[in-house]
């Protein structure tokens, strides 16, 4: 019995073993993004974009009508460095994306026309680019 159970348990543990990922200092990248907000935008939030163990990172925020928001991206390489940020409304309709017709930008300037809860979603175009930071600012 022991001869059967032990290999099964070993295989189970091997299957569960985490894949070794490189470190992601997303906090530092998020902080470095704050001063890179365009002139006139007031800083609101910084976001860690640590996608090493997942295929997307998501936050939510209440955007308000009549306010312009900027979300920028920072990465170890030249931003956007394979990171795409998109905004979805509460019904999960895409209202903004940093990737338009295959061309990727390092920031979104979004003039909100409808107050509500929105989802800020970060996805990754390239497997190597799963680490970054981002900042959210506003102006009226």
């Amino acid at each position, binding site marked *: 019995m*022991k001869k059967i*159970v*032990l290999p099964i*348990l070993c295989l*189970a*543990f091997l299957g*569960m073993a985490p894949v070794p990922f490189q470190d992601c200092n997303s906090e530092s990248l998020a902080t470095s993004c*704050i001063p890179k907000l*365009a002139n006139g935008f*007031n*800083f*609101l*939030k*910084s976001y860690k974009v640590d996608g090493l163990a997942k295929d997307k990172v998501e*936050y*939510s*925020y*209440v*955007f*308000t*009508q*009549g*306010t312009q928001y*900027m979300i920028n991206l920072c990465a170890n390489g030249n931003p956007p460095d394979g990171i795409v940020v998109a*905004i979805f*409304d*509460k*019904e999960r*309709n*895409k*209202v*903004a*994306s*940093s*990737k*338009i017709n295959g*061309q990727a*930008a*390092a*920031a*979104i*300037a*979004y*003039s*909100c*026309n*409808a*107050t*509500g*809860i929105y989802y800020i979603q970060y996805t990754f175009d390239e497997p190597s680019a799963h680490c970054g930071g981002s900042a959210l600012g*506003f*102006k*009226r």
Partner: protein
Amino acid sequence: MRSLLTLWALVVLISCSSKKPDSEAFLKTLENPETATPGVDEEVVNAILEQIPSPLEISVLLKQSGSRYNSEMLNSSHNLPRYNSNYKKALNLGVYGTDLGYTNIFGRNQDGLKYISAIKSLADELNIGQFFDVQTIGRLAANSKNLDSLLLITTMNFNHINHYLQSQSRDNLSVLLLTGGWIEAMQITCQTAARNPGNKQLQEKIGEQKIILEQILLLFSFYETDANMATLKADLNQLKLAYDKVEISYTYKESTMQIVDGVAVIKDNSTTNINIKPENVEEISKITNTIREKITS
């Protein structure tokens, strides 16, 4: 060996059966606050806390609407000695944070200095004073040309305080800080709207706060065993009854997007319609003022 194997097997079973956070359920609670179940889930609480807008956004709107600065609307820093419990300290830390943002936006830095001092005192008493760089803020506040830096550092300080409280499992204080800040912003907006009865934009700003109130009530549903928070929640529910008469409708229309100078510029073509009548504003203002009085007294 057998007992060792049993232990390993148990670990495997527990690992495999551990319930992961249900993201679908969480998103539903964001969209339908009334379906939330009680019991503190820090991950959910922190996610909701993160989505509440800064009161600074309202202060900017007030200034741009042409309303005049009025220090009488703010909570006097002389009230500081009244706040003896952590509950009152956290709430009024939020209140004073909003007041500081308001004075900053209107360039009334001398008034702002009083709030910096009050905020530092409350933060110290709540053991979070290390995140409030009073010297730098005071130096920036001395010159009105430093507005951008002043707003940046105060926002960063409050973000650090919130992250720290959440990391220390003191998120109830974060909820109170946020609620105090929001009620103060509501009170300032309502008073400004009362002085400018023809300003439709201010009325709509009050109306759209229905969305924020729903999220705050969702947060309070996690702390029903806390007597202070349960009392405040009952007051906030009174405000919700008034807000139930406000209708917000949303129409989605695909956005227009183009990349200009390396930035994705998005024109939102969706719309919200906020149906709020003057009598609704009056009722909301009255209840808000009552809650604010309880918080600051």
